[in-house]
């Protein structure tokens, strides 16, 4: 009845349509059992390789950089390399001490219960902005919990395996945070823009928003506690028509250098989150 060519074309069209329908269904459900299984299998390898890389990096920093110095100072080679190696080790320890104290001080300023976690992997593509952290269900992490660093908020837990979790960063296109402009209390919805920046949506034209204004969480989304810093306004465009103004926000957090994060475990306030995300 139909030629082979027609059958192939119809088959292709059916496959493409089925594919798009399947993707639009899965895009409505950000978390999957399959995704968790994938994290469960891959994250231990990521953890091991990530730790090995950090170890190699420290060897590189502490030892190999000193080789040229040691060559120039043959007479003092042994003493000098030992001294510098020890010095570098102390410096690394000091830096990590400062960083952890910084985290600890930040932890004290938070009234909520928090848990520190290390970043062990990043998203396979620059199209999406997620990270994998080394804390999971066993540590009390739940889906939907907010993730912060001393500089500001980082994102939200979207998938949890036993000992690892996936965090959707605020710069991802799928992320939304209810926010306020700190100076004028203008409200808006902060969305990721896939370029390391965020866009403040639905900020009314009549609201006073200028460059360098600080944007903070409003607490109205039921995920992030109120008043946490997010970023500063880097560009404001008010068009002649339209209800809203276009506002670009640069996050305070440098997501390229994210090494440790804190997950807020305020279970009393966030009990609804797990079900919200499921829905």
């Amino acid at each position, binding site marked *: 009845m139909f030629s082979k060519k027609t059958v192939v074309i119809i088959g292709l069209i059916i496959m493409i349509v089925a594919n798009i329908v399947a993707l639009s269904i899965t895009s409505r*459900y950000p978390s999957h059992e*399959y995704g968790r299984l994938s994290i469960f299998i891959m994250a231990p390898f990521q953890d091991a390789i990530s730790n090995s890389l950090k170890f190699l990096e420290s060897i590189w920093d502490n030892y190999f950089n000193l080789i040229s110095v040691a060559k120039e100072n043959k007479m003092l080679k042994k003493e000098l390399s030992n001294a510098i190696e020890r010095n570098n080790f102390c410096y690394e320890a000091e830096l990590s001490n400062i960083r952890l104290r910084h985290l600890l001080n930040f932890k004290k300023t938070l009234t909520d219960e928090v848990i520190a976690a290390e970043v062990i992997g990043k998203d396979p593509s620059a199209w999406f902005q997620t990270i994998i952290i080394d804390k999971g269900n066993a540590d009390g992490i739940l889906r939907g919990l907010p993730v912060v660093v001393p500089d500001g908020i980082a994102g939200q837990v979207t998938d949890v395996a036993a000992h690892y979790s996936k965090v959707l960063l605020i710069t991802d296109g799928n992320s939304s945070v209810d926010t306020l402009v700190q100076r004028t209390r203008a409200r808006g919805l902060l969305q990721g823009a*896939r370029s390391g920046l965020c866009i403040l949506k639905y900020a009314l034209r009549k609201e006073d928003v200028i460059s360098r204004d600080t944007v903070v969480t409003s607490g109205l989304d039921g995920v992030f506690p109120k008043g946490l810093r997010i970023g500063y306004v880097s560009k404001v465009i008010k068009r002649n028509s339209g209800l809203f103004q276009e506002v670009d926000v640069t996050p305070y957090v440098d997501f390229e250098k994210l090494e440790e994060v804190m997950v807020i475990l305020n279970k009393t306030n966030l009990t609804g989150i797990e079900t919200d995300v499921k829905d």
Partner: protein
Amino acid sequence: MLFCFYAAAIICLVITQTVIMASIPFFDSFYDILIPFIIYLGLFRSLRESLPVVLLCGFFIDGLSGGSFGLYSTTYIWLYICCKCVIRFFHAENRFILFVAVVLGVILQNAMFFGIFFILEPDGRQDIYIINFFQSQVICAFITGPFLLAGFKQVFTILDRRLYSERS
């Protein structure tokens, strides 16, 4: 042995992509290194042997990625289908095909991402960052793609030889 090899290859490629390349600033805008692997499987390996590997690659990357579940599986499967169609008309060893295959694979993946984002989020903002990212991916694929394909070919030649000697 073949199963162990594929399991190790998938783990190595996924870890390289998500941990090693992510920690080196230069590789920030590098293309998906599973693309040459999928292309190699599509061009040179049998359907029965390679299709489960393609599905597993998609499954793992989908699980670790922030995109919709199935997005990477979709791109890998279509890439694989394209490769299988190409070898119906051209010889898989054709040098021109090997030279441009990875570039075309990267273009196909990005085009599918663009298309799917356009369908799922018609009002989403696709800024200049994505264009720059796409450009650098294509350049990287043009420079390194043929070498990666040749590398996979070399590794599989050694594997085939070992499998053959085991059997005989």
